């Protein structure tokens, strides 16, 4: 080989090392606090880093879970999804239900050391209600007319009418209480909340480390000194990282990955049923689906257990509309609790469509693991009832675009459930709901029932109302509810104290310890 060629290769190698060395760190580091405090460091494996650090706009799994550990909310959920005090020590509803008075916890401070008081609550709620903020939880405050702060530790919400779901709505991180001095721009770079942790260090796309907030108001301080959310884009690679001891905790969605994790013997996998539910959403405003009989025919032609078994390894439970434990629907109460092709044919006959119908369904590829398998099983089952399900498999961005525009006959979807049924469904199935366009169905009866549910505070009476909501939804089949699946929390043997929640929340990182 000529000497020149060798020197050229040598030069390239030197250039490589020089270029690489220029990168003195693997990314800019945002550091606002010390990490590696006493109590050990917990590493959580996640497939992506947060897409935003602003709590009012966070909807992505990692973002919500990171921010939930940094920010505080007026109310909180306990492990059974009961609403418990958070930054508000207590709250009282006036007799006519039109006033909610919250008494705030004293001595709470933000991460930057400033005091939390009613001024911050008023500013936060008013900004969330302001359309210009584009906060995702704005609609949850639709019943709030005004917010007053008569003294430092009291906040009074004047309501347009009784709203029994409001305390639960205040518990999500999208309702986080921010300091009245902070702006979105500032918080995107330097989060400042009242939660159990503060932001320690962030290397974009690689890791985000939380440091224990020693001034946290809760009786029980976080056990670990720091929690690092380490980005490992592939779930199988997270399993490998846990096997080699580099990651101690991770939440998996794919049942196959969970099986692999458990198979190795070094990882304990706990499965938790989820509030989110798989459904075949029908658009009752489109074509043949306008006829309730066609929708009921679809409902009767589907064996939900078969969908669950073929698409998700049987890992889940057949469900009715409401998945919240306190209000759970009984799937046995639906018009066709098990598959009934004769009844499906009868419904098609009533609709004058004995020859069959064709429905176009959108399916997302990549949004969640089981979508395409579910769609294919549904297609096969419906074909036996002369219902042709034309599948249009779309990249997840394209799916969201069509879904948001309600541009579909049917959609195979995984929807997030909420602890309160009003939060889950009023936005879809009331005539003024902000997602009613997508749901494509409402009725005066449902409007009335949801209004009653909101105005009733007695838990037993509310449960009875939402049972009627559930029955009304099943009887009109705007959607076909299929099943709920599990999430799988993998922990290594040195981790204890973590409590997985049905909402998928990682709020119990604060009680987790690493030996």
């Amino acid at each position, binding site marked *: *080989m*000529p000497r020149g*060629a060798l020197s*050229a290769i040598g030069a*390239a190698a030197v250039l*490589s*090392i020089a*270029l*690489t060395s220029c*990168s*003195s*760190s*693997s*990314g*800019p580091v*945002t550091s606002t606090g010390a990490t590696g405090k006493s109590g050990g460091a917990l590493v959580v494996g996640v497939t*992506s*880093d947060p897409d935003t*650090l602003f709590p009012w*706009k966070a*909807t992505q799994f990692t973002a919500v879970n990171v921010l939930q550990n940094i920010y505080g909310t007026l109310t909180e959920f306990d492990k059974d999804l009961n609403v418990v005090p958070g930054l508000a020590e207590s709250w009282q509803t006036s007799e006519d239900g039109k006033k909610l008075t919250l008494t705030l916890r004293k001595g709470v401070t933000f991460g930057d050391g400033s005091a939390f008081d009613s001024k911050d609550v008023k500013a936060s709620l008013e900004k969330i209600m302001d359309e*210009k903020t*584009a906060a*995702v939880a704005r*609609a949850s405050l639709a019943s709030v007319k005004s917010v007053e702060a008569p003294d430092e530790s009291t906040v009074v919400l004047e309501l347009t009418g009784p709203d029994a779901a409001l305390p639960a709505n205040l518990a999500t991180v999208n309702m986080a209480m921010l300091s009245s001095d902070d702006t979105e721009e500032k918080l*995107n*770079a330097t989060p400042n909340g009242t939660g159990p942790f503060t932001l320690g260090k*962030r290397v*974009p*796309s*690689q890791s985000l480390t939380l440091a224990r907030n020693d001034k946290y108001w809760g009786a029980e301080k976080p056990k670990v000194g720091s929690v690092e959310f*380490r980005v*490992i*884009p*592939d779930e*199988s*690679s997270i*399993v*490998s*990282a*846990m*096997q*080699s*001891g*580099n*990651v101690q905790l991770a939440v998996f969605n794919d049942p196959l990955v969970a099986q692999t994790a458990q198979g190795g013997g070094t990882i304990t996998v706990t499965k938790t049923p989820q509030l989110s539910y798989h459904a075949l959403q029908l658009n009752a405003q489109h074509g043949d689906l306008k006829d309730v009989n066609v929708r009921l025919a679809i409902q009767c032609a589907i064996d939900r257990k078969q969908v669950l078994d073929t698409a998700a390894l049987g890992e889940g439970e057949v469900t009715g509309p409401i998945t919240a434990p306190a209000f759970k629907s009984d799937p046995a109460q639906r018009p066709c609790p098990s598959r009934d092709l004769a009844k499906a044919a009868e419904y098609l006959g009533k609709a004058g469509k004995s020859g069959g119908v064709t429905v176009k369904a959108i399916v997302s590829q990549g949004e969640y693991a089981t979508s395409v398998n579910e769609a294919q099983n549904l297609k096969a089952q419906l074909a036996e009832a002369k219902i042709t399900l034309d599948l249009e498999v779309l*990249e997840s*961005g*394209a799916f*969201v*675009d*069509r*879904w*948001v525009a*309600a541009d579909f006959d049917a959609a195979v979807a995984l*929807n997030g459930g909420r602890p309160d049924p009003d939060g889950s469904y009023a936005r879809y199935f009331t005539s003024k709901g*902000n*997602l009613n*366009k*997508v749901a494509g169905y409402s009725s005066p009866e449902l409007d009335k029932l949801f209004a009653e549910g909101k105005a009733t505070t007695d838990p037993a009476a509310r449960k009875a109302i939402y049972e009627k909501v559930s029955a009304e939804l099943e009887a009109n089949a705007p959607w076909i509810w299929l099943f709920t699946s599990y999430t799988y929390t993998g922990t290594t043997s040195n981790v204890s104290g973590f409590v997985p929640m049905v909402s998928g929340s990682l709020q119990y990182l604060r009680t987790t310890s690493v030996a």
Partner: protein
Amino acid sequence: MRRILANRAVRRVASTIGTLFGVAVFVFVMLRAIPGDQITAGLGTEAAALTPAQRVALEQYYGLDQSPVTQFFSWLGNMLTGNFGYSARSQQGVLEMTLHSLPVTFELAVFSIVLALLLGVPLGMLSASRTNSPRDAFGQVVSLAGLSVPAFLLATTLLSIFAASFGFNPNGQGFATLAEDPLLNLQQMFLPALVLGFGIAAPILRTTRTAVLEVRSEDFVRTARAKGVPPRRLQVRHVLGNALVPIVTMTGLQFGYLLGGAVVVEQIFSVPGVGRQVLLGIQQKEYAVVQSTVLVIALAFVLVNLLTDMLYRIIDPRVRAS
């Protein structure tokens, strides 16, 4: 004017600028052809719940209220002044992001190419040394495996075996650059470079085999042999030396592709290179991130091609003479 254009260097620069402009327009148009925008990418199906006023506020925030032409020229103008745009997701400038990810990809590309050459060239020569023999069959099998085993399969298998059986998984520790921790960095680069190198070794092996066979049949080789040049010297100095041009072409081409980022391998081994940067940009519809990074990749590709052309002049006197 004609004399200026006649200058090869000027022509080359002009065609490079043209190519890069074409890439810029193409990426810009393609990105906007993908359904959805930064709002739906960030909020997912929750975007359906936005009121019109909320949507307008978000469009202003992300600069989506500007016309596409304005967006294009303001981005291109900013690029020329060194402002590559800003990533709201990462809370940092795209230039800064690229200055961190490009060296990582460059290092991975160099390691992969070195491994590919170490595997491909000797095996190619071995194959060519006796055609249709068992050693040739061995070379062919290796090259077929390199071409047909998908990178994701090899990567996942290697990772699982090393992690589960030996507890060896440096890639699970959080990425370290060469400057931060050279030993850990080299460990983290080893498996991804091996996977990529194995895939690239195949075309290099095949090219080497064909080129060596072609050169070996030429008169000067016979003459050299007749003059008593020792076999090893003959193989390396005369045969391989003259077979280098196609091998360098193939290597340069593969190196250029590697600079575009090996998305799948970077994902599996959590290597924060440009491939992942572009992928995340596309997923989040962060237009500036994708446009600027792709343009930088295109520039790198052009430079590698230029470097390859220059290498021809070093290794082949005939090119120099022409």
